[in-house]
């Protein structure tokens, strides 16, 4: 077999997870032992937390703010928002800076996995129920590392805002 032919063959080799070049990318984090992902275009960078300033009378899911390249960003503890034990952030904790339609936030997670690609045909409707993170799940999916849930980050942040009303 000529080298050229082998090359073509490699390009067409089936991906076990059915991922094609045009399938969407997501940004994946671990929360409460599970994998959650949101559209990659919403994640701008992963940074280590600098000195954090706590805000008086802030809800548990907003443990503080920190400064990154001159910008002050709120830290959103997603676990605390959905009723899980809050994650104690410390200097050096990594956060994902993400943007929703209205807000820029630094998401606190158990672990940051990074970019993943999930084939559309491996996305399914969310499981039934609406407690905890299920409230924000748009699709259930699977990739080479296992199952994950695609979440609606805009909705998650909007719920954070709603839960602060009347505090």
């Amino acid at each position, binding site marked *: 077999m000529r080298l050229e032919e082998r090359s073509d063959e490699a390009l067409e080799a089936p991906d076990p997870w059915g991922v094609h070049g045009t399938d969407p990318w997501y940004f994946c984090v671990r929360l409460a032992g599970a994998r959650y992902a949101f559209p990659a275009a919403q994640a701008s960078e992963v940074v280590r937390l600098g000195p954090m300033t706590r805000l*008086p009378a802030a809800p548990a899911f907003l443990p503080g703010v920190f400064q990154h390249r001159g910008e002050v960003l709120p830290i959103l503890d997603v676990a605390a928002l959905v009723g899980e034990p809050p994650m104690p952030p410390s200097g050096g904790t990594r956060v994902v800076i993400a943007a929703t339609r209205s807000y820029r936030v630094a998401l606190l997670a158990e672990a940051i996995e990074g970019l993943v690609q999930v084939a559309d045909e491996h996305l399914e409707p969310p499981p039934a129920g609406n407690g905890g993170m299920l409230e924000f799940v748009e699709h259930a999916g699977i990739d080479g590392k296992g199952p994950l849930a695609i979440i609606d980050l805009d909705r998650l942040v909007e719920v954070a805002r709603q839960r602060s009303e009347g505090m």
Partner: protein
Amino acid sequence: MREPVLLFAIDGKPYAVAAASVGRVGRPAELGGAPRSETRLGRVREGERALQPIDGGDPLLVDKVFGMLTPERIHPLPALAAVCLPHGIVAGLVETDDGLLPLLDLRALLQDARNKE
């Protein structure tokens, strides 16, 4: 325009208020009124000083007053933090050499304390 702020602490945590919002700083007995110690800032431990708002009214009891500072920069609260703190007691963040300090709205803080009574 750089506005001076007054730095103080309650319950071991440092805060700032716009100096222009403070009428007098002194010992609680000197300022009169009913010094407020029950606010969202935590428990006042020493209560050696009090800040009286510029428009009068009951002063805020504090543990320590550190003095005045004219910060390089005062940041607005990030949009999400602003909507998640609807009580309005945090007006912004003061940039200092040691990091960011919450800039409080003294009038809103005292009004919030009265509302919670």
